[in-house]
């Protein structure tokens, strides 16, 4: 469960450091140790936190390489590559553990500090509301294939085909999972979830009355990525948090319109609403 942050953050750090992922630990965030990085909004974790960590890892790598160069290679440049530091003049290698042990003994744990900076071309004027309020956006395109039963006006989504630009894809399996989850949630948004208010109380107050999709409602999904890495950060990732829920309901509404000729512009789209628009003349 969860969005996979604890998987992709070590992945990003391992990538920046050029070490194996199992060398990276990701503790639970605690404001005793980390600064307040703003709210959990706008699908920004991978782009902002991920980029911050990626650039920090690159700094830490440079710091360790500088030490290896000075302590082991007499000043010749060192390059960390998975398990070894390599003298790039002689190709001599020294295991990561040896360098790390000595570094910690001599200088103690190594820390780097890095702060996310907006790319300089991104400007936003809060007074005039002019500029770019976000440095980048993820994009998606959804095609819904829908069957409307002419006997009963039941609506069944048979297949969803979708393409996504979330920048550089850090973990394709998790990204796909997030999109499958978001599309399923969007399916509920489109066809079943409704919360009315009756006498000041929610009428759908339980999971029995607040209907969400089951596995049997979930259509076949085809999900593909078109990677246009974000140029404002070295990492190149954008976000995949909320974007999967945005487009499917309109796609389903369009498909229902093309099947029945009537446009429902209020979610959820139900057989009851189709009937009241179509009249009983089917």
């Amino acid at each position, binding site marked *: 469960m969860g969005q996979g942050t604890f998987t992709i953050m070590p992945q990003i750090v391992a990538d920046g450091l050029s070490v194996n992922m199992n060398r990276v630990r990701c503790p639970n965030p605690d404001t005793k140790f980390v600064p307040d990085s703003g709210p959990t909004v706008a699908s920004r974790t991978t782009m902002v936190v991920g980029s911050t960590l990626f650039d920090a890892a690159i700094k830490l790598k440079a710091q360790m390489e500088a030490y290896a160069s000075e302590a082991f290679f007499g000043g010749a440049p060192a390059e960390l590559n998975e398990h070894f530091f390599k003298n790039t003049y002689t190709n001599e290698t020294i295991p990561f553990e040896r360098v790390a042990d000595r570094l910690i003994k001599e200088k103690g744990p190594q820390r780097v500090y890095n702060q996310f900076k907006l790319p300089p071309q991104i400007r936003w004027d809060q007074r005039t509301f002019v500029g770019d309020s976000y440095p980048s956006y993820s994009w998606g395109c959804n095609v819904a294939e829908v069957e409307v039963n002419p006997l*009963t006006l039941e609506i069944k989504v048979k297949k969803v085909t979708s393409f996504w630009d979330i920048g550089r894809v850090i973990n394709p399996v998790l990204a796909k999972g997030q999109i499958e989850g978001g599309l399923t949630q969007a399916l509920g948004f489109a066809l079943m979830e409704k919360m009315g208010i009756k006498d000041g109380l929610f*009428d759908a107050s*339980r999971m029995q009355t607040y209907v969400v999709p*089951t596995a049997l409602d979930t259509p076949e999904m085809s999900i593909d990525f078109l990677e246009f890495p974000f140029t404002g950060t070295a990492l190149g990732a954008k976000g995949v948090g909320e974007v999967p829920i945005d487009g499917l309901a309109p796609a389903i509404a369009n498909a229902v319109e093309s099947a029945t000729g009537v446009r429902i512009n209020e979610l959820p789209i139900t057989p*009851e609403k189709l009937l009241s628009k179509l009249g009983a003349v089917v």
Partner: protein
Amino acid sequence: MSALEQTELLTPNTLDEALRFLADENTRGTLLCGGTDLMVQWEAGVRPAPARVINIKGLTELSEIKMENGALVIGAGVTHAALRHSSLVIQCAPSLAEAAATVGGAQIQALGTIGGSIGNASPASDMAPSLLVADAIAELASVRGIRKVPLPKFILGYRKLDLAPDELIVRFHLAPMPVGAKENWHKLGPRAAQAISKVMGSYRGKVESGRISLFAVALGSVAPTAVRLPEIEQWLIGRAIDAETLKGAEKRTSDIVKPIADIRSTAEYRRWVSGRLVRGFLEHLASPS
């Protein structure tokens, strides 16, 4: 804390023992079979937890499916999972097997029973329409003896049964589907599984020499109990299934049913779709397969 902390549980080993428990006021209690209705109702506080529960789950006398004197006999403790896979049910009352396959999900089907579904006396019981089109008779037992009551007389209203405090449902007797007849089940729910029906129904019908010779249809969730539609059935007997028949049956059905609006659907849709289901059943009856 569980809602059942203070509740006493009795588990009889035989039907006779269960009937003796029910007969004595000191051991009488609420019957529990699969518990899929009761456990939810107790925990949600919809129904107060009782002082005593008599657990009849697993009693062999309630678990049989068999042919007896020309009737299909289904024990009250038969689960939806057993119903949907029984070759006897598939052969003699196919719409009941189809209905059982649409109840809740796999877990509910594994525990929930046909006796509990009727015992719960909800208009949304997915078991009721197929039992009604098979002219099912409920066999009730108590230490005083056996009573056999046709289902429409047994289900009296919303959450009301003709069941004495010392009685339980032992089994249902169904008329098997005649040779050459067909059945079908259609459930309309707000989603594909784990759904309480908006409207659902079953039919049993037969065409001979191009004319309808048998037609039984029952709908659920359109009235306080599941209902047969005798006016429609009589109107259809002797007719050929043509455009006029389809239109007439659809319109007449929509005119007859008096559904309500609730959180799951509107009265307008329920009325309209009731007619559409009957039309669909007639089309199914007319189709070559």
